[in-house]
């Protein structure tokens, strides 16, 4: 019992799949997003308080994030870099072609100059993007799948399955991720992209599992889930059909977070010399730049672009996560808007203008905030 409440307070949803891994490389705190506990009772507001707002969205559109500046920036960054990673390799040199002169600064022929061995940096950046993103994607998928299993199955099933799976989750949560990754990587004989992604995914699912567990537990007591159970549907089908779709925003947020942390983790491992051997990623570029003294001899065109791209991609992911957060907890979106409208109204009143349409100080909770209006309801 106390653990339930504690879980509810402690680990907030809409966190990335692995808050423990979130501090893996960077010592970051877990993403403390808001309490997105799916409310049991739909929030209704008395009609006379609700001002004339937009018509409530139904169905799938209820699940999409509201459009905002942050979402736009996030999408531009993420999709932009993805496109770069996919298309740029087709337009650039072979990153392993070494017949160029070495250590050239940027020029029209080599947009970002060349490395110490004579490879084109822009080509390496493009192919490295593919490498880094693949590691991130794979690790993200592994982490989400594992946290799904350990979280939802344990939360829904309860009993001693819950106890066992919870125990494993808690142990994995508390054992420090990066040292474990370092120690395992040090012992591995061969380190390919897939193996690194595996190690990163395997060590980063615990935080997400805790979140999903508490969500699954609360969803279990819903009417429609009880109805399905009474109707005799198998647990597996209930989990798949009833519970999972409601967790979709959470899962997306976790996945995006896991991808970012995997990319940062791979960069850190490569810097330590434990990254994928033989592949080109942004992390291996940074590691080679350091080994060849680029940080000291002023060849910023070698070490700034990879780090910057990692940061920009991460920024985009974080902003997307932020927008997803706004679905899960609509107060994040409506509260600032409401406060702003209050301020605007005050200003208008002082200036003598008539009050605007959204004069109400209450956040207008339209039906799009009803989290229980599900796809299949």
């Amino acid at each position, binding site marked *: 019992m106390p653990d339930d409440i504690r879980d509810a307070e402690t680990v907030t949803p809409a966190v990335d799949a692995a808050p423990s891994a979130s501090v893996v490389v960077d*010592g970051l705190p877990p993403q*403390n997003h808001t309490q997105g506990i799916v409310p049991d009772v739909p929030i209704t507001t008395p009609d006379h308080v609700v001002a004339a707002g937009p018509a409530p969205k139904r169905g799938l559109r209820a699940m999409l994030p509201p459009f905002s500046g942050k979402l736009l920036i996030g999408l531009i960054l993420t999709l932009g870099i993805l496109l770069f990673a996919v298309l740029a390799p087709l337009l650039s040199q072979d990153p392993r072609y070494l017949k160029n002169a070495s250590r050239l600064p940027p020029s029209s022929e080599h947009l970002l100059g060349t490395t110490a061995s004579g490879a084109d940096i822009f080509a390496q950046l493009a192919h490295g993007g593919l490498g880094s993103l693949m590691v991130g994607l794979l690790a993200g998928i592994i982490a989400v799948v594992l946290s799904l299993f350990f979280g939802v199955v344990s939360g829904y099933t309860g009993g001693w399955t819950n106890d066992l799976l919870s125990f494993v989750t808690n142990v994995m949560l508390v054992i420090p991720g990066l*040292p474990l990754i370092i120690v395992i*990587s*040090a012992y591995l004989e061969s380190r390919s992209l897939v193996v690194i992604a595996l190690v990163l995914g395997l060590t980063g699912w615990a935080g997400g599992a805790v979140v999903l567990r508490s969500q699954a537990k609360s969803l279990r007591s819903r009417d429609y889930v009880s109805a399905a159970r009474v109707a005799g549907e198998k647990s597996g089908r209930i989990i798949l059909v009833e519970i999972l779709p409601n967790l979709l925003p959470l899962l997306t947020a976790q996945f995006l977070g896991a991808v970012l942390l995997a990319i940062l983790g791979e960069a850190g491992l490569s810097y330590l010399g434990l990254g994928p051997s033989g592949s080109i990623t942004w992390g291996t570029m940074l590691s080679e730049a350091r080994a060849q003294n680029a940080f000291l001899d002023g060849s910023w065109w070698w070490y700034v672009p990879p780090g910057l791209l990692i940061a920009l991609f991460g920024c985009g992911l974080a902003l997307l996560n932020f927008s997803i957060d706004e679905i899960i907890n609509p107060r994040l979106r409506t509260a600032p808007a409401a406060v702003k409208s209050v301020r605007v109204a005050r200003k208008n009143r002082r200036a003598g203008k008539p009050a605007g349409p959204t004069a109400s100080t209450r956040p207008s909770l339209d039906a799009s905030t009803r989290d229980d209006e599900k796809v299949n309801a």
Partner: protein
Amino acid sequence: MRFFARRITFYLITLWAAISLNFAIPKMMPGDPKQLFMEKLMRKGIEITPGMQKSIDLLFGEDDSSLWDQYVSYLNNIFHGNLGVSTTFFPKPVTELIAAALPWTLGLMGIATIISFVLGIAGGAWVGWKRGTWVDHVIPASTLLQALPYFWLALILISTFAVTLQWFPVIGGYDIFSYDYGPEWSWSFVGSVIYHGTLPAMTIIISSVGGWLLGMRNMMVATLSEDYITTAEAKGLRPMRIARTYATRNAALPSIAGFGISLGFVVAGSVVMEEVFSYPGLGKLLFDAVRENDYALMQGVFLVITVAVLAANFIMDMIYGFIDPRTRHNA
């Protein structure tokens, strides 16, 4: 009371799991440490004299007993504080190396994390309070900061502030040129420690404050929409009073709960950073151990880090149980 008992049991079991994991990993992995050690010496151009060969053989002694016996003696050794001898820093015992490094890591990392936590919470509370204004546009900037690779930031800070501008020292926990006889308890030494710790602390603070800030901001916005805040406003309490006494305290709860986990991981995140700054902490020890395939040291540091994380979590759990009565009373 049951709450505490449950948590204590959980932590003890996790401790046992961590120790066993620490024992199991090297046994499962391939590799011959003795051969690697001699390889490394060769690569450095060092000739292996007969005397050296004898000491190497001694160091990497053969162990033919059964796995269970090894496990039991491993546990026994740990409880007697014997973590083996390091091959990189031969013949120093692992416990001595760790004991020397621990205060530096706890000091630098602990203080830097606390500073970034406090800054993040305060900043997040302010940004959350000012929701709906221009301050909201700070958010994308803090997400960018948060996504910067740790070591990349460290290297850039060094090359800018330490080498080019020479405002800060390049390496070390204290001024190694002035203290030939070791650290001493004087004001100038303490000052030297602070001076040398500034750049590393800056790296940690810059890259982690964003996360706390965002989380706190979101919680703040959510909390400020609660009914009791509206009631307080209606009752006419001063805004600052509401912000401090009602909103921030409640909004900070999840962050405080998460702080425990992150404090433990700070040691982990310090690995690369300490190496870059040659800062004499645990992270650098782990990195050195991995690079030199020094298995005894690697295991020792990993164990200590795990125990530190567990201890930090335990303390935070107790504190959390104390400040949030709901957890205790719902037993």
